[in-house]
């Protein structure tokens, strides 16, 4: 060997050190570190419950406590709790189900249950509903929350919370602009013009990366006008006059600068900042906006539903639900766990961890929930008139997942928000986009 070693640095020493440093903890990590291998839905004698980060980490801690504190009747299995991230969640669920390592019971996307039902992976919840009838919880459901889940074959899932889209407004900005809070579309337009003079936007929304509020604004305005993209029988119906009218109105808001021209690219973070920095005066959003944007001074308030040109009112609701899977160590145990969990839901609202409406009347009456006037207003004024994505229809289905997350609605929303279109051609493009992906 005669080549000079051109450095004082010993390669072998370095690699040896790195390998040693890397492998020691690696072995330790792989020895006992893998937590949930093995059978699907359980297989190791436990009911796997997967939950999403619905609110702050404190929510997941509380839910975990409930699940781990569940002591089943004799013969039934205990349950384990697992948080699944929202990012790419459909991929996570799909790959887990396909490899038989999925959950036995889970929350998830609003229409996920219907998608997996199509693929034969969902266990129907009729026996759970029967149990709820026996223990009195069935009669406690708020009106209309159960119907969307009733299919020909049985209950696809059980609703547990209602994610609402309602109008919020900032009092001080309306005072500053010297206008009243809108009661109908005409006054919304007028108020928007006045608000613009004080540098605020009369219709705050956003459809940037990962933000679906913009999409929901579109459907909400259609529903507000008695329209929507589905008929009572679940037929696709995009081009109806009420929808055209709603989109024409939105385009009018855009062309008058009542919608922030940059809205099309606003993430939820940008939208929160808009509310926080007194740029947003009025607009559709979720529950708990004051806490969400960090301004609990009482200046940000829920508005009453506003009337469309024909006197219609309407808001949007996404009934989030808990589903059971066919791949479970014991279907009876899945059912027993779900019945028990439904009975424990009150705890989550009692600890003020939820930013969604409960599905049970009794929970809307507990002081921790009813002490917030915004919550009360939403239950009283918005929940009864709220429509799902099925619009005029009452039953949910797997196509709604395509509508909600899909490209057609998103492109349509962004086209409207950039304002370089007319209502009819935007709707036409939307319709053909939907037709190409919706399965009959």
């Amino acid at each position, binding site marked *: *060997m*005669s*080549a*000079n*070693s*051109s*450095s004082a*640095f010993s*390669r072998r020493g370095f*690699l040896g050190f*790195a*390998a040693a*440093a*890397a*492998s020691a*903890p*690696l072995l330790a*990590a*792989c020895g006992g*570190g*893998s*937590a*949930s*291998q*093995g059978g699907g839905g359980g297989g190791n004698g436990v009911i796997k419950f997967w939950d*999403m*980060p*619905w*609110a*702050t*980490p404190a929510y997941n801690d509380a839910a975990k406590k409930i699940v781990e504190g569940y002591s089943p009747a004799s013969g039934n299995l205990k349950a384990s709790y*697992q*948080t*699944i*991230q*929202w*990012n*790419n969640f459909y*991929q*996570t669920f*799909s*790959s*887990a189900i*396909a*490899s*038989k*390592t999925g959950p036995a019971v889970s929350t998830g996307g609003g229409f996920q249950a219907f998608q997996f039902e199509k693929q034969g992976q969902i266990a129907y919840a009729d026996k759970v509903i029967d149990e709820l009838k026996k223990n009195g919880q069935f009669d406690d459901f708020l009106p209309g929350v159960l119907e969307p889940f009733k299919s020909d074959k049985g209950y696809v899932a059980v609703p547990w919370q209602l994610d609402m889209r309602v109008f919020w407004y900032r009092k001080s900005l309306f005072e500053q602009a010297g206008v009243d809070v809108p009661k109908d579309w005409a006054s919304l337009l007028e108020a928007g013009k006045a608000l613009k003079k004080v540098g605020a936007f009369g219709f705050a929304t956003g459809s940037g990366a990962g933000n679906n509020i913009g999409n929901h604004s579109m459907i909400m305005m259609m529903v507000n006008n008695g329209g929507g993209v589905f008929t009572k029988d679940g037929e696709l119906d995009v081009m109806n006059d009420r929808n055209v009218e709603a989109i024409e109105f939105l385009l009018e808001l855009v062309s008058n600068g009542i919608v922030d021209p940059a809205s099309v690219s606003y993430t939820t*973070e940008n939208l929160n900042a808009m509310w926080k920095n007194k740029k947003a005066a009025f607009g559709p959003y*979720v529950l*708990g906006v004051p*806490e*969400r944007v*960090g301004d609990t001074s009482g200046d940000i308030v829920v508005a009453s539903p506003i009337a469309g040109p024909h006197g219609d009112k309407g808001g949007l609701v996404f009934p989030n639900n808990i589903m059971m899977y066919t791949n479970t160590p014991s279907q009876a145990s899945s059912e027993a766990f779900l019945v028990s969990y439904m009975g424990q839901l009150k705890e989550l609202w009692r600890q003020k961890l939820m*930013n969604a409406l409960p599905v049970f009347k009794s929970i809307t009456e507990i002081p921790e929930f009813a002490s917030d006037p915004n919550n009360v207003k939403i239950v009283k004024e918005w929940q009864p008139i709220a429509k799902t994505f099925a619009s005029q229809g009452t039953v949910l289905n797997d196509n709604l997942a395509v509508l909600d997350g899909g490209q057609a609605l998103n492109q349509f929303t962004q086209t409207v928000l950039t304002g370089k279109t007319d209502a009819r051609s935007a709707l036409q493009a939307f319709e053909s986009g939907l037709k190409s992906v919706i399965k009959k």
Partner: protein
Amino acid sequence: MSAALHAHPESGPVLGVAGPAKNRRVLSEAGHRGQWWRLVAILAITAIVLVPIMVTVVLAFTPGPTSTATGFTLENFGSVFSETLASTWLQNSLVTTLSTVVVSVAVAAPAGYVLSRGRSKAVSGYSLLLFVMQSLPIITSVVPLFILFAGMGLVDNLLGLTIIYVGSTMTVATWMMAAYFDSIPISLEEASWIDGCSVFGSFTKVVLRNSLPGILSTAIFAFLLAWNDYLVAIVFLRSTEIFTLPMGVQSFFQQNQTDWTSVMALAVIMMLPPVIVFAALNKYFSVGGIGGSLAGR
């Protein structure tokens, strides 16, 4: 381009390359004249490039929404470590990443050598195959791989993740190593063969020994791919206690509430190890200069 004029400051003494003395003086004078504008240029570019990163760092030291502190504070870091599993995530990330780096280099260096020196149909066929195979975007591979790994009991643990990272860095790492070996004249190997080395022996003792910059570049590439990935991790990892750091950062992005100051504190923690690694390895980067070994013969 006066830049091209200047030799490596370190390479001279280390390699024992001494150009004629007269020449070196001329060179350094030219260097001094050009030095100030180069410094200004690099300062300006660095400043512009770092603006987005400054945003992150500033936020990490800003009091959070529920904080009573004002001005510059370290409490975000405190709360990240006390209220989340940040230290566990950091450890998981380090384990996964370092294993990935070591194994990737160990696999890619020999393969890169073959790609660089081999001239047969089979070798060029294989190097093309490396391309074809890795051109498929990872998002389409993740689900099939998950199903495959689930059958082997390799989901939701760091070993499975490491195997995938090694597989995905390996293709590029092989090419990077090959590119570096290409710049090493074969005369070095020929010389060692005369001294009685085998093909394999001269590869390990001569070629690798002179390939530190190439190995380090490859290692850094592998380090960053494994360190920053979340597309694979998000599908493969479920238990909070075996998350890697990017997953940890992701899990902060809650659906309805985001505490940016904590996210940014975690992001700064995430930036530190690579920065420390680069800073430590930086001085070995410029050690190269194969010519030196030749001149010394």
